[in-house]
């Protein structure tokens, strides 16, 4: 019977899994136009009305206020959500209210202007992120967008119209929409509409007309929009076709190099379009050189912007480290099977002023098999890298002092040399040494340069005739000076670069070490908490920032577990309720958010999900008081978190395995129990019904004595059954391996007295003595169960000892425990049986229960009950003969209330 019942937990898990896989994400329908005024919003509202007529629950989430009466009229009859009013400086902004929408949870929601950028303080930076959240929650969304807002088309359109739009959406949002409806009208008609003032109000219309809405532009835009739509359809059918054949990508792999150049964005876009056209893989590569650390803030921002753009366009970002950019690119390309490299022309003349061939040339030599596509970007100003001036004044001053001191020292040595009559060449060498030392001891290259110049000048001033002037008589001196300057400068440059490389190498080594160490520590870590503390401490060590962990279980987060740099207490700003809210958003949506991201960007920490595929095991928060993480740190952090997630997954899997093993064991026990019970029930029941049947039929023919014998058998068997049922009732209270106890303070003498009232009535043939101390022994126990324990042990003693034996029950207190000993002076239990006596279905007779009256349940039950009370049960020999059962119970200390 038990075998057919499937395990409810398993069933539940299955159902949940199915639910998860069936969890409907909402459908996204985009109303797509080539310019404002084509009637997207109108079409969307029309469609909404149609949907409502079909019986859908439709709500207007946000529609831009329109002056067009035809559009406004369509608001009629649709529920409108209140806007989120955000005060921004002096103006109040109306924004789409995501929270209200999630709470209202309609079937279909209308949200205008997909590319909109939200006001500061909203959950997401961009509206399309709001919409993604709605879709994830299973809400269908209608939205609108114009062609110029699509990222990859942005620059083309800007070049046509001369107007660049800042609000853009990643192509993937557009391509992954479930439905795109192109709202199209003839450009002439659009201009007519515009002139009729239907689109913008008067003054705006003039302006718009001037720079955007001319027939040529509109036709071009329309063409792009139509083509983009067709492209999307084409790609979709391609995808369907390919997905059946299990291959998606062609062999093409397009690589674009990301730099901090502002023109880089154009190159990235071009590369993305190529990747699309070839349907190839798309990788953005950033080569981090030693100079990266000195990059100024504006350049860093530009770089981040470019990286973000590349990711938007669907590129996977990779970072490599090294000084030699073309070599790194070529290596990467070779290793990752890149087929085409897209680069800008500005890259070609970037920094190799003196000796080296251009980047492209070197790349061609290093990787002759690659296609290299060079995108011209000449009309942009030549890009120059500025040095970061961030060093503290103190350091600058120190560097200057070091330089001057060295210079003075070198000059003094020079004087000494001249006194000693050494040649000028020696003095020059000393100066070069001075510059070399300056380069070694100072932090910036400018000092080496100045030092080189000053050295030449001082040498000229002090050591060339005429002395103490900057003139030089000898005709060879200018050459000497030039050579001296060049050798000083080149030496110092090399020294500086070596210093930087050493620093970088050591940093890289440090990070690699951390990664390795983390891996090893995680392998050793046991249990979730240990894994987390290992990972967190490694992150703290690596990032030198405070780290906060949240463990996730069924979409709810644990309390924050903070880890700080050093050991000061964590700043309360990092574990405040609103920070936790960000963390739980991350947990629910399985996306990163918080500081430095586009989602909930005003949080104090950056939050990342620790996840394997769709399962989030926790959320980690990284305090972001200063600048964002650099790419290297970011990548290492991600790999550490990846390791962490895998470890947590293993841990969970292990737990689940253990649990199912336990379940299986319990199931096995229950099955054994049932088998054993049915046997043990049948035997006395057969006797009862048989004896009763005989009495019913033949009572009159039997003599008094044999009748009495039958009555007695029936009575004994039923008593035996009663006792069995009592034990079974106690067994049923053992659920999930633990017992549900109803603990209360009980007086031991009362408990013993009650137990003795229930022991087998044959006890009259045995002498039972209770020895108790004078003090009151109170135990915190479930009286019903402990009575059962005593009944079982005493009944056993009665059963297995000859009539007339003595049974002594002793109670005493020791170390906060109450000790109960039940001793008999019977034949005792053989030693090999003692080891098994508390196992289920073991009987003192032999082996497994198979004979009558043998349900070996009593003592095993006793053991479970005592263990559930936190006590111990044991058995030992009595002297001179017999057995002592001993068990402990928690003592209850009581303060009397009078």
């Amino acid at each position, binding site marked *: 019977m038990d075998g057919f019942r499937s395990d409810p937990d398993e069933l539940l898990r299955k159902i949940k899994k199915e639910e998860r896989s069936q969890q409907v994400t909402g459908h996204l329908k985009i109303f797509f136009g080539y310019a404002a005024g084509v009637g997207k919003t109108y079409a969307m509202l029309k469609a909404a009305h149609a949907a409502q007529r079909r019986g859908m629950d439709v709500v207007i989430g946000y529609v831009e206020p329109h002056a067009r009466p035809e559009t406004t009229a369509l608001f009629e009859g649709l529920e409108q959500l209140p806007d989120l009013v955000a005060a921004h400086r002096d103006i109040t902004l109306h924004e789409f209210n995501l929270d209200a929408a999630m709470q209202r949870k309609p079937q279909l929601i209308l949200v205008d202007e997909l590319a909109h950028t939200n006001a500061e303080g909203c959950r997401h930076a961009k509206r399309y992120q709001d919409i993604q959240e709605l879709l994830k929650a299973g809400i269908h969304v209608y939205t609108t967008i114009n062609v110029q807002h699509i990222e990859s088309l942005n620059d083309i359109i800007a070049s046509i119209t001369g107007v660049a739009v800042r609000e853009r959406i990643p192509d993937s949002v557009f391509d992954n929409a479930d439905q795109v409806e192109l709202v199209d009208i003839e450009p002439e008609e659009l201009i007519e509409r515009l002139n009729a003032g239907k689109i913008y109000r008067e003054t705006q219309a003039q302006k718009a007309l001037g720079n955007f809405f001319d027939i040529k532009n509109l036709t071009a835009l329309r063409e792009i929009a139509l083509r983009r739509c067709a492209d999307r359809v084409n790609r979709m059918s391609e995808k369907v076709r390919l997905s059946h054949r299990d291959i998606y990508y062609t062999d093409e792999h397009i690589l674009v190099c990301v730099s901090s150049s502002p023109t880089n964005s154009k190159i990235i876009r071009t590369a993305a379009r190529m990747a699309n056209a070839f349907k190839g893989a798309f990788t953005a590569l950033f080569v981090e050189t030693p100079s990266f650390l000195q990059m100024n803030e504006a350049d860093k921002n530009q770089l981040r912007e470019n990286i973000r753009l590349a990711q938007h366009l669907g590129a996977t970002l990779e970072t490599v480290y090294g000084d030699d950019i073309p070599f790194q690119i070529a290596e990467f390309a070779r290793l990752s099977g890149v087929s085409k490299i897209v680069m800008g022309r500005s890259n070609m003349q970037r920094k190799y002023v003196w000796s080296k061939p251009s980047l492209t040339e070197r790349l061609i030599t290093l990787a002759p098999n690659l296609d290299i596509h060079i995108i011209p970007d000449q009309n942009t100003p030549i890009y120059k890298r500025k040095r970061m001036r961030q060093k503290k004044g103190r350091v600058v001053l120190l560097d200057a002092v070091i330089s001057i001191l060295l210079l003075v020292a070198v000059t003094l040595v020079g004087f000494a040399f001249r006194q000693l009559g050494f040649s000028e060449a020696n003095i020059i060498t000393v100066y070069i040494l001075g510059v070399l030392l300056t380069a070694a001891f100072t932090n910036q290259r400018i000092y080496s340069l100045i030092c080189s110049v000053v050295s030449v000048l001082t040498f000229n001033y002090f050591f060339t005739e005429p002395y103490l002037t900057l003139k030089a008589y000898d005709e060879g001196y200018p050459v000497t000076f030039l050579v001296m300057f060049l050798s000083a400068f080149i030496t110092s440059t090399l020294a500086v670069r070596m210093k930087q490389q050493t620093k970088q190498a050591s940093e890289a080594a440090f990070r690699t070490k951390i990664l390795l160490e983390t891996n090893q520590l995680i392998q050793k870590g046991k249990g979730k908490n240990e894994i987390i503390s290992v990972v967190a401490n490694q992150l703290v060590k690596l990032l030198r920032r405070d780290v906060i962990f949240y463990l996730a279980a069924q979409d709810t987060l644990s309390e924050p577990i903070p880890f700080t740099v050093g050991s000061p207490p964590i700043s309360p700003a990092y574990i405040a309720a609103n920070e936790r809210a960000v963390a739980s958003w991350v947990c629910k949506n399985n996306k990163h958010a918080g500081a430095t991201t586009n989602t909930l960007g005003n949080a104090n920490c950056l939050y990342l999900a620790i996840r394997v595929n769709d399962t989030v095991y926790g959320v980690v928060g990284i305090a972001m008081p200063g600048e964002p993480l650099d790419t290297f740190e970011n990548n290492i952090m991600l790999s550490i978190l990846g390791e962490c997630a895998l470890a947590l997954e293993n841990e969970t899997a292990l737990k689940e395995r253990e649990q199912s093993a336990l379940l299986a064991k319990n199931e096995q026990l229950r099955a054994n129990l049932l088998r054993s019970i049915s046997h043990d029930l049948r035997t006395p029941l057969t006797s009862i019904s048989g004896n009763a049947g005989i009495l019913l039929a033949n009572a009159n023919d039997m003599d008094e004595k044999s009748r009495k014998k039958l009555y007695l058998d029936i009575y004994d068997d039923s008593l035996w059954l009663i006792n069995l049922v009592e034990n079974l009732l106690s067994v049923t209270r053992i659920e999930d391996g633990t017992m549900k106890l109803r603990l209360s*303070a*009980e007086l031991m003498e009362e408990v013993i007295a009650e137990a003795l009232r229930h022991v087998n009535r044959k006890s009259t043939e045995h002498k039972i003595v209770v020895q108790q101390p004078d003090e*009151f022994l109170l135990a915190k126990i479930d009286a*019903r169960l402990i009575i059962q324990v005593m009944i079982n042990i005493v009944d056993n003693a009665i059963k297995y000892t000859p009539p007339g034996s003595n049974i002594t029950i002793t109670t005493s207190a020791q170390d906060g425990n109450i000790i109960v000993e039940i001793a008999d002076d019977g034949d005792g239990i053989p030693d090999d049986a003692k080891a098994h006596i508390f196992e289920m279905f073991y009987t003192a007779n032999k082996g497994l229960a198979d004979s009558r009256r043998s349900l070996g349940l009593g003592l095993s039950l006793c053991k479970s009950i005592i263990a559930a009370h936190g006590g111990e049960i044991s058995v030992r020999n009595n002297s001179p003969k017999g057995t002592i059962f001993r068990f402990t119970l928690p003592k209850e200390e*009581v303060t009397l209330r009078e």
Partner: protein
Amino acid sequence: MNKPLVLAVEDDAAIRNLISTTLETHNYRHLTAASGESAIMEAVSHNPDVVLLDLGLPDIDGIEIIRKIRSWSNMPIIVISARSEETDKIEALDAGADDYLTKPFSVEELLARLRVTFRRLNYSANNTGNESAVFENGNLKIDYSACCVYLDGKELHLTPIEYKLLCLLSKNVGKVLTHSFITREVWGSSWENDVASLRVFMATLRKKIEKDPSSPQYIQTHVGIGYRMLRV
């Protein structure tokens, strides 16, 4: 005195048969009811001396029947329940039941409970006038007005709590009082800790009034439920 009338409410025919046979052979008049509905009808129309009530009835919850009967009568109610329904027992006692029997019960036990109940009934019927002044039970005598307790004619020295306990039990002689009822009555509240105190005071009280505390004559323990003073 007339033969007492017992109403047995039990839905299981075999047990109903067992009870009625027992009652018949021991000279009690009896009525039976198989459902809560008919039990209340019988109780109203015949006003029995004692009700034996099974808690697990098919139509009405046993506790509900106790409340209904208690709304118009103080007739003793003895609850019959299976052991697994321990909390139900306490609830039933708190709702106004006088005693309980646990299935499986023996016939002797059933008869003993009935005897206890009738003794109490007879006693209170004979002592309606001076009940509040002096209580006598076997060799135990309580003078409520003087706050004195005598055993075998000798005065006992009880602490205030012990005296309160004894008074409470004596005034409800024959009735099982639950732990929470006693602690509420004696201490005015029912704490977790009070049960422990109650056990200790009950034990000291017993030492003073019982000749052999391990087989008590006056105060009976019902483990997990409460205490009862027996009419000796």
